[in-house]
């Protein structure tokens, strides 16, 4: 018997690690991977909550499926953006691109 809190704390740890990665790393690719990790942590809580609220409904599980779908779509578009970024700016370093300012 595993208490829900274990799952929640576990996913909190994963989320915090991902968050730290987003803040500290400079490579856009790695930042992106950290975001994927954070998303996974959230998925985990969704399933854990779904189980703790009963077994008849699958709202949490279904939600995870949609999150995974969107994550896949996001990965495709995001990587495409990174590729075109690398081509145009000759860099994928988050600290060398300040186009948002313009």
């Amino acid at each position, binding site marked *: 018997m595993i208490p829900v809190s274990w799952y929640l704390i576990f996913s909190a740890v994963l989320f915090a690690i991902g*968050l730290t990665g*987003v*803040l500290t790393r*400079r490579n856009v690719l790695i*930042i992106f991977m950290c975001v994927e990790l954070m998303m996974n942590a959230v998925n985990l809580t969704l399933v854990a909550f779904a189980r703790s609220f009963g077994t008849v409904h699958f709202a949490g599980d279904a939600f995870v499926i949609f999150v995974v779908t969107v994550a896949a779509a996001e990965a495709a578009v995001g990587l495409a953006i990174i590729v075109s970024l690398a081509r145009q700016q000759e860099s994928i370093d*988050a*600290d060398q*691109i*300040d*186009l*948002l*300012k*313009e």
Partner: protein
Amino acid sequence: MFEAINSIIWSLQSVAFAEPKTDTGLETIKSIIWLIPTLPLAAAFLNGFIALTFLRSKPKSELTATQRGLRYLTSTIGILAIAAALLVSLIVLFFLIGQDKEHKLIQVENIYTWIPSGDFNIKVGFNVDPLTSMMTVVVTTISLLVHIFSTGYMREESGYHRFYTYLPFFTFSMLGLILVNNFLLLYVFWEAVGLSSYLLIGYWFSKKYDWGRLLPSDASKKAFIVNRVGDFGFGLGIMWIFVVMLNHAEGAAKGFDRLNYQNVFQVFEEGSKTGAIDHNTITIIAILLFMGAMGKSAQMPLQVWLPDAMAGPTPVSALIHAATMVTAGVYMVGRVNPIFSLSPEAMTFVAVIGILTAFFGSTVGTTQKDIKAVMAYSTVSQLGYMFFALGVLGWVAAFFHLMTHAFFKGLLFLGCGSIIHSNEETIHEALHKMHLVVKDHNLAEEIEHAIHHDVDPQDMDNMGQLIKKMPLTGWSMVVGAAALAGVPFTAGFWSKDEILGQAFAHGQYPIYIVGLFAALLTAFYSFRMIFSVFFSGDYRLPKAMNRAVARAGGVNAVEFVAQGRKTKPNQVEVIAKESTKNMTFPLVFLGFMSIAAGYVGLPRSIFGGLSVFDSFLEATFEPAFAQVAPKETSAWLTVILLILSGAIALTGVAIAYYMYHQNRDVAPYRARRIAGPLYTISKNKWYFDEAYDLLLVKSGLLFERSLWLFDRYVIDGAVNGTGWVTRQSANYLRKVQTGFVGNYALYITIGLVGVIGLFYLINGI
């Protein structure tokens, strides 16, 4: 929403895969009702797509062959869609006729939950009963005929396809208004018909001169704004109904539609019986709802928009501003009869407004020069008849008159359209030839300007003796005018007499007498129009053009036309010609209906079971009849009343003949001498527009001026001050924006951690 769409998907699947049902009748009818409004909507979308993608608003002469084909495709699509809707409506009508009294209500419920929100649930559905069914048939019939007529009337228009986008859209809105089963949707479609009316009145929005009438662009705005006044009350009424439903429908199941007709009627009936709902509340709700009807159906004092709405193309006037949309108010009161019948005070109010309007419209109609203005005031007056019929509890009589009126007034308007079209073509042709003959450019310009300004194709003074040139138009309009006047054995005779008979039966003698007097005036003005347009004197349009040309210093306008047609100048009377078949066919058909439609609702006390209309529509008004049982005059009294109203109508016709058949130029002076100031009042439409201008517009401007000063110094000061502060602070704050994504992530994280931390600081761990 997901649930709703899911349910649609499932229902589609179940339709596709379901086994054929055994009780085909009702289920089949239920499954085809949605086609009635959807077909015109589809046509509107398709035409709009074609118009926007391929045609835009190029003049006809600049279009390629393909584009011309597409142009005619739009009208064909419109006509076919409406014809199909008419077919479906007829199927539903005959199905309903075949049902016995208890089963005359078909409810197609819960097609789709539009707003599922706690206590506020709106479910889209259809409510089909005899009244609905009768209205859909009338609307689709008139709409079909108008669609056909317009292929001729709008032939040369550069906005032909635009017209054929709006017209099916209007038909869709009107059918939606009739078919829906709940108050909020009723309001939605109520506004949708208003919108399409606005678009169609302003069809010639770029017109700069309209012979002293209000310009289409202004008229459309006026119609919309005046309707706002009524709709304000209508909206309040619906909100109040919702509040009452919230308080009195306890224990309602989840998803209970508090604005569904049947639910509302049930609660109101029970609430009124037990005294749970205050009687005054019901009265106020009924009067608020009636305010909407006053706006939409042009009842006093909100009638001012309808005559100006004639700025739209004439087929539009026929369809929207005579036969269908303006009767939406009557329909609404009939539909909500279970609430109205609970409050005798509200019914009295309806009756008084109705009779005042009927009287007003008929007096103004007697003196107008513009043929469409006569018809417009006639419509106002006839709508007044319908409302006082409702007010004296002659429910069925009102709708009988609504139906016959739709036919004969549609006919009269289309007939006007035919005449105006012929006049416009004559003017157009004269101008065309003039440009070929007159070489001097400046003079040609001046002549054209003079003709455009001085020769009004709608002015009855420019017509006369048209019966010889336009026999089909002429004789069908004579039939229509006879029906309007109530000449014996036409449709209008039976329906108007039933209204007056109901007033008599319910003991409303003052209303009966005023109604009879209005009927006299109605007969007079309708035949005044007929005699001056078709029979008296000679055809005046060439003379008017000659006068205009002479003033501009040119030569004889008639000669231009004559040259164009290779005839001699002294044979110019052939220049007015009958309209093409696509325009005369609807006229003849409606002429037939203007007589035949009366024979479905013959007076019951004489003809008994022959009066199918009464027995058919009774199911709808069951709740009203439960309050006050229907009354009828006895057979002998009915005969006397029939003879009386027939005599009144014939008297009116005789007066018109006496005054207008021979000496129509003298008639206005004679009338002024007899009636004195009354003539002036009638001619100026009782000064309604002037009074509104003084009361609302002028004083409004004064108030607005003071607001402007406030706006200038206080509001503008505050706004500019805000801008200044923002600008100054932004100078410093913009440095925060570095453009690096990481920094933004940092800010977000600090904020996130900070907010959760703050929560703990305040609440403790």
